[in-house]
């Protein structure tokens, strides 16, 4: 399967078909037992660990299925994390993180710790964290699972705009038909054949 630069692709399929595994493979967090994964034209298995980390830090934003904010850091510090690892100038980090939280509607809670946020707010913070480095490739694993309808209504145009206006590539793993319709292409995973179908949106 191939995803072109600037595409917005939804990966759908029932639970256990490998949506999360696919995201892990693309982000270099996991390795294929067969075949190869090329990201930004580079075969990940042929890169050094340091090169893979560099690609992940600078070019890929990930929203994990379980959000995974660090409980010892405040919301804004969590959003600053990828900026530290991508090498963004120290003086700009807080400002960028604050802008991201403003964009996602969480600026009033930026100094709180994740333990005092609702599941939906944690998810929003995770999305802000993934967008902080302005990544060329945004990977989202079930991004709307903890969100209410009004937040989803904010998120959808944000993702569409990020893809369309900024020409960023988005790969979205979801079971939500509403979210999948937003993408320009849908790829369905099936188990056990692992057949991949491409449907033009």
């Amino acid at each position, binding site marked *: 399967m191939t995803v072109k630069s600037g595409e917005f692709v939804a990966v759908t399929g029932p639970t256990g078909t490998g949506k999360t595994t696919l995201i892990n493979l693309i982000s270099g967090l*996991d390795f294929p037992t067969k075949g190869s994964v090329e990201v930004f034209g580079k075969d990940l298995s042929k890169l050094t660990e340091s090169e893979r980390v560099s690609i992940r*830090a600078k070019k890929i934003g990930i929203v994990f299925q379980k959000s995974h904010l660090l409980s010892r850091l405040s919301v804004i510090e969590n959003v600053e994390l990828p900026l530290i690892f991508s090498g963004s100038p120290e003086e700009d980090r807080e400002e960028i993180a604050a802008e991201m939280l403003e964009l996602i509607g969480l600026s009033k809670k930026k100094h709180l710790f994740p333990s005092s946020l609702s599941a939906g707010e944690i998810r929003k913070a995770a999305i802000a964290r993934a967008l902080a480095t302005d990544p060329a490739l945004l990977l989202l694993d079930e991004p709307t699972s903890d969100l209410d309808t009004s937040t989803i209504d904010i998120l959808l145009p944000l993702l569409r705009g990020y893809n369309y206006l900024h020409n960023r590539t988005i790969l979205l793993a979801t079971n939500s038909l509403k979210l999948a319709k937003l993408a320009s292409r849908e790829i369905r995973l099936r188990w056990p054949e692992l057949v991949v179908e491409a449907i033009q949106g």
Partner: protein
Amino acid sequence: MNTADLLFRYIKELGVESSLGVVGAAASITICLVAASTRQIESNASAYQFAVSSMGFLIVATLLSLCMMSELLLKRQEIGILRALGAERRVVMAIFLSKSILIGTLGSIAGIALGCVFTFITHAIGQQYQSVELILRMLTVGSAGSIAAGLYVAIRASRINIAETIRG
């Protein structure tokens, strides 16, 4: 926030595991200092001192390895998240190595202080002696043990399976 701030957040937190590490290192250094202070085997003093120091190093390194491994088990998912967000292996290594050195140094200082007090109290009984050289040797033993333990756990921490930890 910068990398140093992030490291500090992890290092400053002295939980139960870290406290046990400090106590264990302190007890080991105290025993070694007292053992090394005796004058009873003066005919083969250097071999005796070497044996006591080696034993101290092994005990401190083993205790701190256990303590840091339990820290790693507790923080496994956090480490996975940091790595998934783009943290280099050396950032993860720095967290565990610096924490192990801190625990080892605190334990060594406490152990030396306790050892000095103990040998002073028992001076009349066992004809013991203290020297700056002996104290520095014990500090070196504690530090070397903590560096060895820290390096072992730091390398293991930097090589965790990221996908597995973030799924958990």
